[in-house]
């Protein structure tokens, strides 16, 4: 019992009207607990005590439901994007099953491409109302299964492992027990449908059983051809000694193959349910390895499970980061304290004094520089006077030392001959050039001569001139 508690995979098996609780060990061995009827489980008075005690605290993992609780359909679909496919399948299920709103949360699908290149999605979904009641009840007790599968899916996983090219064409699998038989049909590896057949009582020979089996198999083959629009290519059989493979092959008129090694392995290591009915002879492989078989999950829970590692990692990494940053913060806070103390006490006053002293010093230097660069108005006038030729005299003079140092003057120039004007003005410009070194070079074009107002003066003519230039 301890072994099961530690390493067991809790499984619930659904029969016709009862539920079985199974604890399975890692190698497939199992312990089937007492069955519980639906009536009892789904009644209003039912509580957790209805569940076997060993099961109450187990993380619930797999539920095996009858094949007929499962529906499947194939929808032509071009894209291979999972998000698009999921939205598409959910929309289809809502439209096809308006009376079962929860059907959209319990489905699985696979992308499928035919040999002709046609693409589609193969969708499996749970459509049995009892299932949804059952699931809701288990959710109340926090015992809801993470994965839901069927015997057909479990057989499919076994057959894919053992039969080469199982995923090609149509395949049938006949599972014969003492009093009943199960027929499973797969198309291109996908489960299509199954049937349960009650066989006649064994009365010395198997003729009646073979007859019934042959008839039912032929009926099913016809049904398959209608559903899949293809024929069954191969028939496999696991009879566990109840009937001979050759007898069925003879009656069917086609080959029936045994699955190599299957019966030996099942009878040796697996749990076989001894209950009659749907679960009779059900082989339970190791269901802890859920990736090995097709299963259906409650979609919101599946999404939660998908995101859970991301969230956990996010929390773990974030928490570690938070701790590191908090540690860093504490260190920084401690480091900042001495620095802060230094700057807040005497340091700040000292800094203010130093800054103020430097500011005053800088202001003084700026002032010295400004005053050094300021041209002397007196010297400017002297230079200007020295630059003046004999026949030029000033009428108005403006000397500016700030903001833009410059000279603006208006004067009179006298000449006896027109050509003398030019000579006098050139002489004036040469004088300016000599006395105001560093200024822009001046030319005759810079002197504005008011030729319209020239008048006679002392035997010659005098004209008013104007000139502006900047000081260095």
């Amino acid at each position, binding site marked *: 019992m301890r072994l099961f508690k530690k390493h067991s995979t809790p499984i619930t098996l659904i029969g016709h009207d009862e539920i079985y609780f199974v604890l399975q060990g890692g190698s497939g061995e199992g312990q089937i607990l007492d069955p519980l009827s639906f009536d009892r489980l789904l009644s209003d008075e039912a509580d957790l005590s209805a569940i076997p005690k060993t099961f109450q605290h187990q993380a619930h993992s797999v539920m095996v439901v009858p094949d007929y609780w499962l529906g499947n359909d194939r929808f032509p679909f071009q894209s291979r994007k999972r998000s698009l496919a999921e939205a598409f399948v959910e929309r289809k299920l809502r439209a096809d099953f308006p009376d079962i709103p929860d059907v959209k949360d319990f489905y699985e699908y696979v992308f499928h491409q035919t040999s002709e290149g046609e693409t589609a999605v193969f969708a499996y979904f749970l459509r049995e109302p009892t299932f949804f009641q059952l699931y809701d009840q288990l959710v109340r007790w926090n015992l809801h299964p993470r994965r839901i599968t069927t015997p057909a899916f479990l057989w499919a996983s076994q057959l894919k492992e053992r039969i080469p090219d199982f995923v090609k064409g149509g395949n049938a699998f006949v599972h014969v027990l003492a009093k009943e038989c199960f027929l499973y049909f797969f198309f291109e590896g996908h489960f299509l449908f199954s049937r349960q057949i009650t066989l006649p009582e064994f009365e010395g020979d198997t003729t009646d059983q073979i007859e019934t089996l042959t008839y039912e198999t032929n009926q099913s083959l016809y049904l398959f051809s209608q559903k899949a629009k293809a024929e069954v290519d191969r028939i496999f059989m696991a009879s566990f000694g109840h009937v001979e493979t050759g007898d069925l092959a003879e009656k069917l008129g086609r080959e029936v193959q045994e699955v190599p090694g299957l019966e030996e392995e099942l009878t040796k290591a697996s749990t076989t349910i001894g209950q009659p009915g749907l679960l009779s002879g059900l082989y339970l492989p190791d269901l802890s390895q859920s990736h090995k078989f097709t299963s259906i999950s*409650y979609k*919101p*829970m599946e*999404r*939660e499970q998908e*995101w*859970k590692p991301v*969230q*956990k990692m*996010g*929390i773990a990494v*974030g*928490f570690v*980061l*938070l701790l590191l*940053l*908090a540690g*860093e*913060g504490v260190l*920084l*806070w401690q*480091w*900042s304290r001495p*620095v*802060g103390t*230094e*700057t807040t006490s005497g*340091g700040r006053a*000292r*800094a203010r004094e*130093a*800054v103020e*002293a*430097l500011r*005053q*010093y800088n*202001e*003084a*230097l700026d*002032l*010295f520089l400004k*005053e050094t660069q*300021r041209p*002397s*108005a*007196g*010297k400017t*006038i*002297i230079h200007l*006077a020295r630059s003046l030729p004999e026949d030029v*005299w*000033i*009428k*108005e*003079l*403006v*000397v*500016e*030392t*700030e903001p833009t140092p410059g000279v603006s003057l208006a004067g009179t120039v006298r000449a006896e001959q027109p050509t003398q004007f030019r000579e006098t003005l050139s002489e004036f410009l040469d004088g300016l050039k000599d006395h105001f070194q560093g200024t822009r070079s001046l030319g005759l074009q810079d002197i504005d001569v008011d030729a319209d107002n020239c008048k006679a003066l002392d035997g010659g003519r005098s004209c008013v001139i104007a000139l502006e230039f900047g000081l260095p």
Partner: protein
Amino acid sequence: MMDRMNKRWIVVVAIWAAALAINYWNISKMYQIREAREEKVFLTMDEQFLRAHSEEIAESLKKREAFFHSAEALNLGLLTVENELGVLATRYDLAEVDVTSMLDQDTGSSIPVVLSCEGSLKKIVECLEALHSDYAYAPVTKVSVEIEGRGAPARCEVRLNYRYRIVRPETQT
């Protein structure tokens, strides 16, 4: 079920938000520490500079004082400078002397003052040179000269920038 997932998302977001907030706080703290240390380095450098150049600085500050006219009040300062300018102009035989202060253009530390006078250009230039050398607190910013004719006296308008500093009587220099 979704509730559980949402709660986990809330925890994730809360933890990362807290991490980001602490990171932001740490970064700002680092800047604070760096600034404080830089400030300390600059302060040390400033102090070293002030110590090393204390004499030059003191001399410069002292020299700077010459560029400002210390007065207990602006009116008193103006009265003094107007009077001094008038005396100066008279000393250089300039006539029609008038000194006007542009009170409406007071900047708080300087005020334009206009000296108008009439005389020979030579005397005006000498007066300007005296202003330049002796009145550092009143630099000439503009000089306008008008001469009616050759040999005629010049009419002059000198614009000065009177720099002043209001001081308490005991700190007056």
